[in-house]
C-alpha cells in the first residue's frame, strides 16, 4: 500500500501526465462530471460519478473503421487503425471497472475486436472507492464492492490522503512511474475506510435488491410477463438509458460519403430505437414494448444465459437518474418480481 496527501494530487497528476495521457473526472461548464484529459489547473470533481460512463475509453461513441478512396474505377482501401498511445484513467468507480470485464466478454471473444483490444491494452485504470454512494447505486446487487473497486490500482480517499494499492502488473508499473511522490504505508487506514463504506452500504435504499428471479433460466416466464406493457407505456424510446449505460455494447456500422470516397464508421446503437437491427424484412421489434423489453431482458436474462450467469448490469444507477420519465432497471426488476421478492 502507498499513500499521497490530498494536497499533492496536482503533482501526482502532473507527473502521470508527463509519462502518458491522463484522464480525470472533472466538472463541465454546466456542472456535470465528465472524464477529461488532465491539464494544469483541472480539478477532480466532487460529483459521485460521471454522466457518461467510462466505456468511452475503450468503446467510443463513434470511430472510423476503414476508409475507401475512389478514383476512376479504382478503389483504394485505407486502414485508419493506429496504435493507441498509453493512457491512464484516474478515479473510475467500481461499477464502471466491472463494466470493462462485461465489455471484454463481448469484444475480446472470438473474433476479437482489434480496435477495442488496442485501446484496452493501452489503458491503465486507477479506481476510487465510493465514500458516499448515491441512493441510485445498487452495484452490491451484482456482487460489486464499491469499497474495493478493483482495476489496475485501487484507491481510497480518507483523512486527507489518497491510498493506492496496485493489483496488476500494469498497476505496479504505474506505481513505479510515480513512486517519487508516494510513501509506503500499512493497510489500516484503507481498511478503516472500507469498514466505514460497508456501514453506509447497508443504509442505501436499494441495499435489499437481489437478482433472484432473473438469470438465463428465466427466459420464457419473464419474456411472456404481462407487465411489460405497463412498464414500457411511458417510454419515449429516446435511448438515453443505453447511451449513459456502461455496459450497453450495441453498435451500428455505417458509410459516410465524403464526396471522394467512403468513410466507414461505427457508432453506438440502442435497442430502444425504431431502426435497431432493421434488416430488409424490417425491424423485428415492432413497438416500443418489444424494444423496451429487449433492453432489460438482455441485461437480466440473455447476457447471463450466454456468460455463465454474469448479469449485464453493474448497478451504476445512471439509467435511474437520467431517464426522462424515470423508468429504469430497478423499477423493472421490482415490478417483474412483485409478490415473489
Amino acid at each position: 500500500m502507498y499513500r499521497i496527501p490530498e494536497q499533492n494530487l496536482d503533482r501526482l497528476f502532473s507527473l502521470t501526465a508527463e509519462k502518458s495521457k491522463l484522464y480525470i473526472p472533472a466538472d463541465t461548464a454546466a456542472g456535470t462530471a465528465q472524464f477529461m484529459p488532465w491539464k494544469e489547473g483541472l480539478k477532480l470533481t466532487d460529483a459521485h460519478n460521471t454522466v457518461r460512463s467510462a466505456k468511452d475509453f475503450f468503446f467510443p461513441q463513434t470511430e472510423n473503421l476503414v476508409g475507401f478512396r475512389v478514383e476512376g474505377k479504382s478503389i483504394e482501401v485505407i486502414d485508419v487503425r493506429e496504435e493507441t498511445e498509453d493512457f491512464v484513467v484516474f478515479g473510475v468507480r467500481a461499477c464502471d471497472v466491472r463494466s470493462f470485464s462485461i465489455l471484454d466478454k463481448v469484444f475480446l471473444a472470438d473474433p476479437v475486436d482489434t480496435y477495442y483490444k488496442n485501446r484496452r491494452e493501452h489503458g491503465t485504470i486507477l479506481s476510487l472507492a465510493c465514500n458516499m454512494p448515491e441512493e441510485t447505486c445498487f452495484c452490491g446487487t451484482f456482487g460489486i464492492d464499491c469499497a474495493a473497486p478493483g482495476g489496475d490500482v485501487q484507491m481510497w480517499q480518507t483523512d486527507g490522503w489518497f491510498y493506492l494499492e496496485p493489483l496488476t502488473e500494469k498497476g505496479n508499473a504505474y506505481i513505479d512511474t510515480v513512486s517519487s511522490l508516494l510513501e509506503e504505508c500499512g493497510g489500516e487506514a484503507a481498511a478503516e475506510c472500507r469498514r466505514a463504506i460497508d456501514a453506509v452500504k447497508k443504509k442505501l435504499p436499494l441495499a435489499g435488491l437481489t437478482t433472484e428471479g432473473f438469470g438465463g433460466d428465466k427466459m420464457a416466464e419473464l419474456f411472456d410477463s404481462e407487465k411489460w406493457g405497463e412498464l414500457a407505456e411511458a417510454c419515449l424510446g429516446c435511448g438515453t438509458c443505453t447511451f449513459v449505460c456502461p455496459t450497453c455494447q450495441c453498435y451500428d456500422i455505417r458509410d459516410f460519403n465524403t464526396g471522394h470516397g467512403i468513410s466507414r464508421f461505427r457508432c453506438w446503437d440502442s435497442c430502444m430505437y425504431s431502426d435497431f437491427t432493421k434488416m430488409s424484412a424490417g425491424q423485428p421489434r415492432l413497438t416500443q414494448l418489444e424494444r423496451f423489453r429487449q433492453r432489460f431482458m438482455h441485461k437480466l436474462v440473455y447476457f447471463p444465459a450466454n456468460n455463465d450467469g454474469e448479469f449485464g448490469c453493474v448497478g451504476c444507477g445512471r439509467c435511474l437518474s437520467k431517464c426522462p420519465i424515470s423508468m429504469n432497471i430497478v423499477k423493472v426488476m421490482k415490478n417483474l418480481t412483485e409478490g415473489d421478492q
Partner: protein
Amino acid sequence: MQEIMKKRASELLLDGTVSRVIGWKAGDFVYDITPAVFESAEEIEKDFVYTAFCGANLSKYLVKESKKPGKTLVFLKPCDSYSFAQLVKEHRVNRDSVYAVAVECRGKADVDKIRDCGVKGICGISEENGTLTVDTVYGDKTLPLSEVMLEKCASCKTRKHAVYDELLGEEGEEVADCDRFGKVRELESMTPEERYEFWRGELSRCIRCNACRNVCPACTCEKCVFDNDNSGIAQKAAADSFEENMFHIIRAFHVAGRCTDCGECTRVCPQKIPLHLLNRKFIKDINELYGDYQAGADPDTRPPLTDFRTTDAEPSIVYRRGEK
C-alpha cells in the same frame, strides 16, 4: 391537491365519463415520477401522485392515448395546457376524446439542482409551504423550493391555463416579472465569435440520445427525418463534431412558431444543455418581427410563420448581420 385530484379521477372513472387517466405515478425516491395511464380507481388509489416533482408534461401522450376508444382524462399544469392546445391546433390530438383537467402549479423542483446543492443519497423528500425537507442516507436537509426549481418554472411566463374542461384548485396569474428572454439578450449582445463558442461549448456535450426530441410535444412526426434511412440524412450519431449542432439548429427551426416554451427539452437533457435558449431566440424574434405570439394560446389565430402577408417584415432587412 393530490387528494382532490385522486378523488376526482376516481369519480370520473367510476361514472364512466372517462375510460383512462393520464397522470403521474410514484417512484422509489419521491422525485423519480413516471407518467402513467391509470384505468381503475384502484390503480389511482395505489400509485397516483401530484407533488413538487411532477414536472413531466403529459400532453404528448395524448397523441397515442386519445386515439383509443372512450375519453381520456389528462391532468395539465398551466404550461402543459399550452402544449395540449397546440397539439389540438395541429390536429395531432382529437379534442373531443380528451377530458382536460387543469391543476394549479406553483413551480416544480429539479432534483439535479438539489444535488447541485451538495445533497447526496436522497431517500425521501417532503414539501410544506414552499420548503423541501430532504431525507438522505447522510442526514436531513431543508431547502426552499424556489431555489431548486426547474429552469422552466424559474422563468414561468404564466400560471394561467390556456384551455381546460375542469379546473381543480385555484387558477393562477400571468407572471409579471418573468424575464425569460434575459439570457437570450445576453447572447445577442455577444460577438458572433463569442456566440459561436458558447454554442459549440454547450452542444459539444450532446450525446445524441434524442431525449430532447422525443419528449418534445412539438416533435410528433411519425418518423423523424434523422431516423429515416431513406431520407439520406439519418444520423444515429454525429459523424463529425459539427453534426450535433446542425441537428439542434434544424430542430429549433422545425418547431419555431409551434414551440410553446414548455421547457421539457432542457428538463430532460442528461447533459444539461440549455436547449430552451435556441427556442426562446426564435420566439423572441417572432414576437419582434410579427407581433407578440404565443403558440398554443388559442385555437384560431394563424401562426405567424405560416401566415404570409405582403406587409410582413423582411427579417434580413430588420436585423443586419451581427447587430440589431
